């Protein structure tokens, strides 16, 4: 080896210089220039110029640049080379990073999609995963408007009953979340969808793998390149789009109407008993809603001096509340026009034997909800050095500070839609209540007759403003690559992630609610986790005549994260002064901590790609995983996959069909594993101690309690992987000389051995977690379809159009013997979700509303129904037994969209570019639980109600009413049951982005000392077309078996940005 090396260095070097230009004779920057068969190479500079040392006149230089056809030029005796590259019409040579290796579109036999880097940055979001929405076929993305939120990202359906998050791999290191990434640092994004692509990740591949690669710079001697990308803008909360609430007078009028309806239903005399609206049929509004001492409406004056004195003596408990007769728009009050800014600096460069990229990013975004904010500061340094011609060492490193304050909803914001958040509170707060009382305190429901909502402005401003919540994250890997012999590359990489979080949470005593918050409270907590991965791979390329093969193998060990958490809380410190409060000064401090040791994996994997004459391609791969997540009985899983492709256009007979430039037919089969959906302790039977469920003050004290134990888990040592068996058939075609590209995939994924916690009978003791057993199965199938059309309309007007389409069918195939369903969460007594065999995951279940009872006679003549009455829901007697029983419930919708798609249109006219992006989701239903609060008088009687009250049932409206009769009753026939009235069509189409940019012509750049300059304006979420009545149809949920319930979603709303991109 040393000898070879020595020989090559003494060879006569010769400098070849030149310029790479396009057909328009403009220099092309960033073109890779490699001496064929070696690793020596360089890159063209901003003007397209290059310089390279050639060793021999037989050298062939390979010029390749993204978007251009590669070109090979023999050096011969030349020292100056001017090369013209033509644009690549097929992009088939595009390099696709698939995690451990790279491939290209031409040779790929698997279902793989890529996302352009610029698509990830088009809409500023706190989490890059959100930008996959509609950009990748076969990926379902359901997100919400909270900055920095997590989203539901599902690759090819919902494979299991839980743990369906895809595996994210960043620069070869698997991570649980990509929220630490700055979008401007990302070079490429690849989604591995089928087994043929993903099985190399074995036991964690079943939910698809999303591979991110960050920017690297290029190897060549050149000066530092600096780029700046920034945007600044704001998000509008869309107050006009919020559900309309009754005005104060309307609410009062409809309250009296409800009393009349109550009396009619009960056959009694009407009593107008509301403490605020007067005792006559015509409602009036009082002069004061509340003055300390008098809780019900005051008509006339109050003793203001006495109240002032009382306020001075006891400000926290003295209120004087005037009605806001114009009506408070609570949604308006809790929201704001929220600024956002994002700035990224990129520094890249290199020498002949090194390259580097340094990225600095900052994003500072306010949520549209008060006191809700997101901040991310990131630093990235990627470098690579050639230690010798055959040895390279490199590293990727990132530090991120990320802060999210005021986020609501479980699983990092994922569960916002079905949380009773402050958005719901804004609907529930009567419009007559002002935000502030006459003393400037927050006003609320201490005034009688408004039930129990709490002033959401107070909750957000007092309880969130001083909160803090951040994590600091170090992420990266270091790798060594060696080419011991020609065509063999050995790579060793060790990587990991360290995460440290801290939060503090202040909540303040407030006595102005009907259900007051009696104590000041404070909590804080912190924790860390550390995960690592050590991978070693070898790749050998072989080409013999027309046969080409790549043989790849690897060995990997990893831990998903060890760490600890500690959290404390307490109440009523002497003072809530921010400089004073800590866990040492609160009363009743409670401290909890926990530890986790992660899951170890040990894996072996291998892959062979074979191709014949660029015509036939075969790939076989296998991975063997061992995981500590499972018991010793079944720790090892083996996941094989096979795929093949036939490049039809390589056949002679296809040459006759000129409009087909390229056509490839692919097919693949394989198995992938999923182990997310099981607790690592599932293998053990365990006992636990818990303050809330097993402590007991046995000594008879009133202070403190003694620890007790209970059985917390029944183990199953035999649990093993869930296995997804996938089949994929696809076509890749390039038509009309590159004007059209089509990718079509039909796929089916059957997940067997699904881990399911078969419900334990209560007699076993319900505090014990049931063991997960491999018993259920699920089917997903779909069609993914992508069409890209691009071309020139005139000499100066170029266009490109991308249409991504995904059809999805999801069905639970089986659960367990004798188990045909399990239910989701209960919301205010309603259980809308049933996960049942033969239905999609998270299907809605309930009575079918066939109208409203028109008369007492109709009530009598209809099947017996609990709580039936005039103007109430009339349910369908499905089984025809003459009575409405739980057996008459049926499936009334599914939140899983049957179709999702996105259309991206780009136009370029001279230096102007224009693009727009439209996303659509069709066929999904939403269970609009927020109507339970706003559309019935009897649900928390007196709280804020929506304008649909005015279309509630009357004899005149009959079945065209929007809801049942306005009355107090709350039972099975009114608000008390899951039924089809709550279910709405959640389909929508949203124009997510519209942007116009201007690129400063190169001629002008020189004067400015710039290599690149573009200015743009964009608008996001411009409009949404939907029939859904709630605030936003993007309704997710925290878990797969329980989503699509809208209790008050955090909406995705319109935003406007100005962007600037500069290169120096």
């Amino acid at each position, binding site marked *: 080896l040393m000898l070879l090396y020595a020989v090559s260095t003494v060879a006569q070097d010769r400098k070849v210089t030149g310029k790479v230009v396009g057909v328009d004779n403009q220099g092309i920057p960033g073109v890779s220039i490699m001496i064929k068969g070696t690793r020596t190479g360089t890159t063209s500079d901003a003007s397209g110029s290059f310089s390279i040392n050639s060793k021999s006149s037989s050298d062939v230089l390979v010029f390749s640049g993204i978007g251009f056809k590669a070109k090979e030029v023999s050096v011969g005796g030349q020292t100056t080379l001017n090369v013209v590259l033509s644009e690549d019409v097929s992009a088939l040579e595009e390099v696709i990073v698939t995690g451990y290796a790279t491939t290209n579109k031409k040779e790929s036999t698997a279902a793989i999609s890529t996302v352009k880097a610029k698509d990830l940055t088009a809409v500023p979001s706190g989490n890059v995963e959100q930008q996959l929405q509609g950009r990748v076929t076969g990926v379902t993305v359901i997100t919400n408007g909270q900055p920095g939120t997590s989203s539901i990202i599902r690759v090819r359906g919902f494979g299991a009953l839980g743990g369906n998050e895809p595996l994210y791999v960043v620069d070869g290191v698997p991570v649980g979340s990509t929220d630490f990434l700055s979008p401007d640092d990302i070079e490429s994004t690849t989604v591995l969808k089928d087994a043929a692509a993903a099985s190399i990740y074995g036991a964690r591949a079943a939910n698809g793998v999303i591979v991110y690669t960050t920017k690297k710079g290029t190897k060549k001697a050149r000066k530092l390149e600096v780029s700046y990308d920034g945007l600044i803008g704001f998000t509008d909360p869309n107050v006009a789009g919020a559900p309309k609430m009754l005005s104060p007078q309307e609410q009062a009028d409809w309250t009296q109407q409800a009393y009349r309806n109550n009396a009619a239903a009960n056959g009694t005399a009407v009593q107008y008993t509301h403490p605020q609206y007067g005792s006559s049929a015509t409602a009036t509004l009082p002069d004061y809603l509340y003055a300390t001492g008098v809780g019900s409406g005051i008509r006339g004056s109050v003793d203001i001096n006495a109240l002032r004195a009382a306020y001075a003596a006891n400000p926290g408990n003295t209120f004087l509340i005037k009605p806001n007769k114009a009506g408070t728009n609570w949604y308006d009050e809790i929201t704001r026009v929220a600024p956002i800014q994002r700035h990224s600096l990129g520094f890249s460069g290199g020498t002949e034997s090194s390259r580097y990229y340094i990225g600095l990013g900052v994003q500072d975004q306010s949520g549209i909800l008060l006191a809700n904010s997101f901040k991310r500061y990131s630093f990235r340094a990627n470098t690579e050095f050639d230690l010798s011609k055959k040895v390279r060492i490199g590293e990727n490193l990132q530090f991120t500070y990320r802060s999210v304050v005021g986020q609501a909803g479980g699983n990092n914001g994922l569960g916002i839609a079905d949380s009773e958040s402050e958005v719901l509170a804004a609907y529930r707060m009567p419009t007559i209540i002002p935000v502030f009382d006459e003393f400037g305190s927050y006003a609320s429901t201490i005034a009688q007759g408004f039930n129990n909502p709490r002033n959401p402005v107070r909750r957000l401003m007092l309880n969130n403003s001083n909160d803090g919540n951040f994590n600091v994250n170090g992420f990266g890997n270091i790798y060594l690559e060696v080419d011991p012999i020609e065509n063999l590359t050995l790579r060793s990489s060790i990587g990991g992630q360290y995460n440290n979080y801290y939060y503090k949470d202040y909540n303040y005593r407030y006595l102005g609610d009907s259900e007051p918050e009696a104590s000041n409270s404070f909590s804080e907590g912190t924790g860390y986790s550390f995960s690592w991965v050590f991978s070693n791979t070898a790749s050998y390329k072989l080409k013999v005549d027309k046969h080409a093969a790549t043989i790849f193998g690897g060995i990997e060990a990893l831990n998903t994260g060890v760490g600890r958490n500690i959290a404390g809380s307490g109440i009523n410190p002497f003072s809530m002064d921010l400089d004073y409060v800590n866990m040492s000064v609160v009363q009743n401090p*409670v401290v909890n901590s926990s530890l986790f040791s992660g899951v170890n994996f040990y894996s072996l994997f291998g892959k062979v790609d074979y191709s014949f004459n660029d015509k036939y391609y075969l790939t076989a791969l296998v991975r063997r995983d061992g995981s500590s997540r499972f018991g010793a009985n079944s720790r090892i899983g083996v996941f094989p996959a096979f795929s093949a492709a036939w490049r039809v256009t390589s056949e002679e007979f296809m040459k006759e069909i000129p409009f087909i430039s390229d056509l490839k037919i692919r097919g693949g089969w394989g198995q992938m594993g999923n182990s997310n959906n099981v607790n690592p302790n599932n293998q053990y039977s365990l006992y636990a101690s818990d303050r809330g469920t097993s402590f007991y003050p046995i000594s008879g004290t009133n202070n403190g309690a003694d620890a007790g134990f209970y059985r917390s888990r029944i183990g199953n040592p035999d649990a093993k992987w869930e296995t997804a068996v996938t089949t994929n058939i696809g076509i890749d075609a390039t038509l009309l000389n590159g004007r059209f590209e089509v990718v079509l995939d039909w796929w089916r994924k059957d997940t067997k051995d699904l881990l399911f916690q078969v419900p334990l009978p209560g007699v076993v003791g319900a505090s014990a977690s049931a063991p997960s057993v491999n018993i259920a199965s699920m089917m997903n199938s779909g069609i993914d379809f992508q069409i890209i059309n691009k071309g020139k309309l005139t000499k100066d007007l170029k266009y490109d159009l991308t249409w991504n389409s995904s059809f999805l069918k999801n069905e639970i195939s089986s659960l367990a013997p004798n188990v045909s369903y399990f239910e989701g969460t209960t919301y205010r007594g309603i259980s809308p979700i049933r996960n049942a065999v033969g239905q999609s995951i998270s299907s809605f279940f309930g009575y079918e509303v066939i109208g409203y009872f028109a008369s007492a006679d109709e009530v009598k003549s209809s099947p017996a129904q609990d709580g039936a009455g005039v103007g109430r829901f009339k349910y369908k007697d499905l089984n025809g037994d003459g009575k409405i029983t739980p057996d008459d419930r049926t499936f009334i919708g599914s939140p899983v969209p049957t179709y999702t798609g996105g259309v991206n249109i780009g136009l370029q006219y001279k230096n102007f570019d224009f693009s727009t992006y439209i996303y659509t989701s069709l066929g999904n239903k939403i269970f609009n639980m927020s109507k339970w609060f706003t559309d019935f008088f009897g649900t928390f009687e007196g709280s804020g109600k929506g304008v649909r009250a005015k279309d509630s049932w009357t004899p005149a409206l009959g079945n065209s009413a929007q809801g049942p009769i306005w009355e107090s009753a709350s039972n099975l026939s009114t608000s008390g049951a899951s039924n089809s009235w709550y279910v709405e069509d959640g389909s929508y189409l949203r124009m997510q982005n519209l942007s116009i940019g201007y690129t400063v012509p190169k001629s002008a750049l020189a004067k400015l000392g710039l290599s690149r300059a573009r200015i743009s304006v964009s608008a996001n979420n411009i409009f949404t077309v939907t029939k859904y009545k709630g605030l936003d149809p993007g309704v997710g949920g925290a878990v797969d078996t329980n989503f699509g319930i809208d209790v008050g979603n955090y909406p995705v709303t319109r935003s406007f940005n100005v962007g600037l991109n500069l290169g120096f």
Partner: protein
Amino acid sequence: LAQAQLSTKAGVEGSLLGAYAMLAGKGYTRFAGPNNWVYGSILGGDANKGTDPGDYTAINPIQRYEAPATDGDINGSWNAKYEGISRANTTIRLATASTELSDTDKKRIIAEARVLRGHFYFELKKIFNSVPYIDETKDYGTGIEKVANTPDFWDKIEADFKAGMDNLPETLDQAGRVNKWAAASYLGKTYLFEKKYTEAKAIFDQVIANGKTTNGKKYGLVAKYAEIFNAENDNHEESIFAVQTSMNTGSTNNSNAWDDLNYPYNTGANGPGNCCGFFQPSFSLANSFRTDANGLPLLDGSYNTGSNQLVNDYGVESNAAFTPDKGNLDPRIDHSIGRRGIPYLDWIDHPGKDWIRSQPYAGPYSPKKYVYYKTQENTLTDGSSWTRGYATMNYTIIRFADVLLMAAEAEVEVGSLEKAREYVNRVRARAANPSGFVTKAGKPAANYVISLYNTAWTDKAVARKAVRFERKLELSGEGHRFFDLVRWGEAATELNAYLAYESKFLVTMFGGAKFTSSKNEYLPIPQTQIDIQGKDILKQNPGY
């Protein structure tokens, strides 16, 4: 923790404490609380749900005797009781297998666990009647799910309490433990429910003569009725078997968490709790405290008619004038019911409608018995959660007055009416202690007229009626009434009369509701459990 770590003495004791913890239904529905405020008191007509129609709607059908088998809280109650049984069984298994326990400790621990198990089965018996009986020999993997439900397990409950009576010491260091006499009292109660009056009498005779509390106090009645319901007196001489509650434990579950909703509404700092206006005493219960000129209750049921009915502020605004009832009343009314114009413990005079969430829906009264005093805020309440309503007042599952009245019942049935009268009078004498009356401005807050039964009881039916009515008055709101009505066979008559009366006022709540005989005596077996175990194992109760 693995099972091996629990085989030490501390481990077995901890497992036993885990079983004790389930007395409070910790971690399960509020309905699973030990005081049976829904199943015993609301279904028994002592109180209604309270609050407004749209709040906690799951109770609406239950209080109308329309409980659906699919109800989640009923399922939660089932699970809570079986969790208790499971922990008791685990404790018995661990204790039996443990080599580190002394024989004395082993005997005691197993006996304690058996008393707890007996209690949970007693609860299941009262609520569901027919349930699977599972002892320590069956567990997950050994056929536990194949045990069918049956109503016939009184003998097993007897055996557990008998074991407790025979094996437990009279006193123990820790006041929260069950002792010999708690087990004996419960055994007597079991006999009473089985209508084995002779056996019941025999046991009660011993308990009354010799019984003492775990902390060594001879059983007796506290001097003032209100002292029973005061956290400062926890584990008093009347406390036979109590659920211990506490603050500063890191979880409000160790307080009276099952009652956190059961406070007057919108009281601000003037009243206890914050929330939520549940568990409002009924019109009928309030009227029941009417006494005649002799200071005796209206046993003929006329309390719900004419001028016997209590004057109340139903439909009267808090800022409108109101004069409370001036007629003769049993003084226990103002320890049991919060009503307008009467001091609400040491808070303010109950202001009426201002403290009621929806008076038209649920009536004018507030709960009062297990409510804490103003002076106890933050010293005997746990303020660490969303409401202030986490009292730390022991709930007494069996108190001595209850034993006296149960003994009186047994005496009536075996024919010793005068002995019964003596017991009843003992209870009434305490109630009549004038120093225990609620006072306002130094004078009794209402016209309290109460006396003993001074005439000999000669008619068994009359005596029976008097004993049963005394039970209603003495133990109102403590979770007994419904189960008493059912075992007396009076549920249908009493409760349909109750519904007819209450629905004159509370139309939305009770209009059209009725109690169906041979069905509503028991709740439905939770559908969820039938679905899991199969219809062939768990048979639904009749009528559901």
